[in-house]
């Protein structure tokens, strides 16, 4: 109880009591030491509300960097800027599509690195979140530091646009506004600077639609990174906003000439998934899964948002009757050869 009170009242000051000799003792020192292990990542984006920057954490002294799998990485020219301002070209080593993680490599040595804390913490744990939020820090400017509390440890039920988040395991839900543009890939550390988790992509809660502030726990991060480095995490699937082309399902809609062209089927490629599911020319697509669609463009976007491995289900109007078609699991697409 007394310890809890100390936490409540003096926050960072209590660190002095528990820190081991040689370790950072004040909140300021913890923030400074931990921030050296956080990098700014610059890649694709800068258009249509998609930021071209995010965060990453150094997980090995020889330049391995964990980050969130996002459209930012969909670039041939990835840059990492370290806390000291040094800029490195980064190479994508691999991705974990389920946990939405990626590992990058830069040609550097003797970097300060995080060791993920494997055991979970409980709700009520004080944390610091360190990230490149809003891209406000550039060059040798230190990443932004926020403080908060783990509010809950619960399974992630979230979506981005039409797509449900593929990861449904436990996350740390935080009581502070940590998950902003630029934050994905940032570090969540405890009061001694130990890595508790990695800030996830910007997601909304499925139930309420509100933006979630959360982190993937460090044990999941460690497993994801290990799988990526072992090559067992899965294929580096496309990360663009509309990764799946309708044509790969064998579905050809009428030419998209208007702002909201009604999504009538123009033709179906023989032998394709669409043909096997029984689609026919002149069918009008009205829904993809549970999502209503009113234009060719909307169909493309909705199908593009179906996660790899999930079924692609279409609702159609054919001769005044609603027809359901199941095109089977969405095929994986390999973006880079």
């Amino acid at each position, binding site marked *: *109880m*007394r310890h809890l*009170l*100390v936490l*409540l*009242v*003096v*926050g*960072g*000051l209590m660190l002095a009591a528990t820190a081991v000799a040689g370790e950072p003792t*004040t*909140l*300021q*020192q*913890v*923030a*400074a030491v931990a*921030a050296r292990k956080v990098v700014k990542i610059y890649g694709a984006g800068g258009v249509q*509300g998609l930021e071209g920057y995010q965060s990453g954490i150094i997980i090995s002294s020889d330049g391995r960097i964990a980050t969130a799998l996002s459209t930012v990485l969909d670039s041939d020219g990835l840059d990492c800027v370290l806390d000291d*301002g040094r*800029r490195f070209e980064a190479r994508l080593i691999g991705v974990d599509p389920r946990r939405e993680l990626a590992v990058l490599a830069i040609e550097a040595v003797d970097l300060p690195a995080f060791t993920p804390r494997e055991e979970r913490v409980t709700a009520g744990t004080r944390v*610091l979140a360190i990230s490149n*939020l*809003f891209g*406000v*820090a*550039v*060059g*040798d*400017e*230190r*990443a*932004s*530091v*926020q*403080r908060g509390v783990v509010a809950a440890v619960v399974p992630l039920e979230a979506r981005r646009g039409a797509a449900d988040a593929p990861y449904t395991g436990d996350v740390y839900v935080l009581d*502070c*506004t*940590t998950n*902003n*543009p630029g934050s994905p890939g940032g570090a969540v550390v405890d009061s001694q600077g130990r890595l508790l988790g990695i800030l996830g992509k*910007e997601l909304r809660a499925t139930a309420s639609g509100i*933006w979630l502030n959360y982190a993937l726990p460090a044990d999941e991060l460690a497993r994801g990174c290990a799988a990526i480095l072992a090559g067992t995490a899965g294929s580096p699937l496309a990360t663009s906003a509309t990764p799946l082309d309708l044509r790969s399902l064998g579905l050809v809609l009428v030419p998209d000439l208007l702002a909201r062209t009604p999504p009538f089927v123009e033709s179906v490629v023989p032998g394709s998934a669409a043909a096997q599911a029984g689609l026919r020319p002149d069918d009008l697509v009205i829904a993809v899964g549970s999502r209503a669609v009113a234009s060719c463009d909307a169909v493309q976007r909705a199908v593009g948002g179906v996660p790899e491995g999930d079924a692609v289900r279409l609702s159609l109007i054919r001769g005044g009757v609603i027809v359901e078609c199941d095109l089977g699991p969405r095929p994986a697409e390999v973006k880079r050869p």
Partner: protein
Amino acid sequence: MIADMHANLPPNRIRVVAMLVAVVVVSTAVCQAEVDPTVIEAQRARVEAIRRGSNAAVSIFAGESGGGSGVLLTPDGYAATNFHVVQSSGPAVTCGLADGRLYDAVVVGVDPTGDLALIKLLGRDDFPCAQLTDSDDVQVGDFCFAAGNPFLLATDLRPSISAGIVSGVHRYQYPAGTILEYADCLQVDAAINPGNSGGGLFDAHGRLIGVNGRASFEKRGRVNVGAGYAISANQVRNFLGGLRSGRLCDHAALGATVSTSADGRVVVSDIVESSDAWRRGLRYDDEIVSLAGRPVRTVNAFKNVLGTLPAGWQVPLVVRSGGRRREMLVRLEAIHSPATLAKLAGGSEDGGPQPAATPTARELPAAVRERYEHRAGFANHHFNRLERDRVAAALAAVRDAQPAGPWVLAGRLASGAEFRIELSDASASIDLPTGTSTVAVDDELDRQPVPPGSGGLLPALVLWRRLVVEGPAAVGRTIFWGTAPRTPATFAAGGSADLVDVLESSVAGVVARFAVAADGRVLAIDLWCQPDADPCEVRLSWEDAAAIGAMPTRIDVRRGDVPFAELLVDPVAAGATP
């Protein structure tokens, strides 16, 4: 986007204070049992800090144009707020304090570029106020709290408190067009919402470290997203003199733009050839090493330093060019022309504070009407009068110690040769080894920039004597310009500069600026015979710092980069002629 204050939300009683109260209640309940005394002490200190911040917090209500927050800086009621809070309020706003009382307030000065404004609450001379501290000492991770009027909730006038930590220091936030730039600002995760604008950001001791004004409002609507920005206390201090002058204040431009070179250095990528920086020798591709005493390693760092400086200050600039390190003193120019600034400040070309602000547009409270004077180039000229009179009083306090008749300053140059200066109401002359020069004191002074090469030393000394003997009213049209660093050396250590008052006089074709110490001594004179050329810079110093009222013992004269003379005044020979 800017956290401007046009919040039209219904009043809401939810308070962050409640959370703090809860902590107090919990701690009170538990401390009956057994609590570490350091915890009790830390909590007591925190309660005290928040009490101090709350007492200095101002809730600003600007009628139909919304409102916001402010923070009291002096017992006589001067309070800082954001420019965008009073941008369309007119000269009068209504302010509430934590004591539950309403006060009339008048807009004193505005700085549109830096989003700062100064108002004065009326009716007391014992307002509780905040203590400005050195914001360069603030560290990431420091406890901080904001006291203000988010969503204009303070219907009972007691401020809302939101606590957090400092998330970043020396941040740069781009301007909207050319105004509302946040340079070298503090980033906090304490909730900064619409209505917090202009309110104080305080440290763990309740000292003022910044003025809240902006947040990263992007995807999630106009509510706190965990990233708020505050104008640093040091920037506020730099502009306080200009704000008190009632002038429309502008920020500094170097006259050169910089960019990052391929090898990561910050280099000059463009430069205006009419700028002082060009005249001092700054050239394309020169590497910027430091500005105003602060190292520059990134373009952002350069913008951070420049963005906190008022136009007109002279600051040290260190560059590396051709493998050589050079230090120069650069006089910073203004970002905007006076007409543009006036338009930005309020829409009217001549610079009344606001278009709706002409006193006829709205009936002003009597106390404000007495303290508001419309004049081109000013937000409120009334306060310029006050400040000019204050400096005049400091000058007058030492007047009796000065000779009233003609002055003689004689002694030796650094070379050993003799000099003699005679100044009187009717004539002025200077004998130098290079010859004798005189000034016809009643003629246009801009045509007499003598001695040759000095840029106008003798006219500067004539005006100096007139200022000391007869006061500011005798030196043409004289305004209180603001404050400036005592010497460039006060920048050397970075941090906040040692500031002295500056008067500006336009008289007989010349413009002169006088730096006046609090003890009434004139420390420096800059005199322009031509507007865009180098002024004659005269620096006065005293061997005995306590010898107030005595003649200076040393006069340094330079023009541009070229020292003209070092005059070592013989104290025995100096004084009134018999």
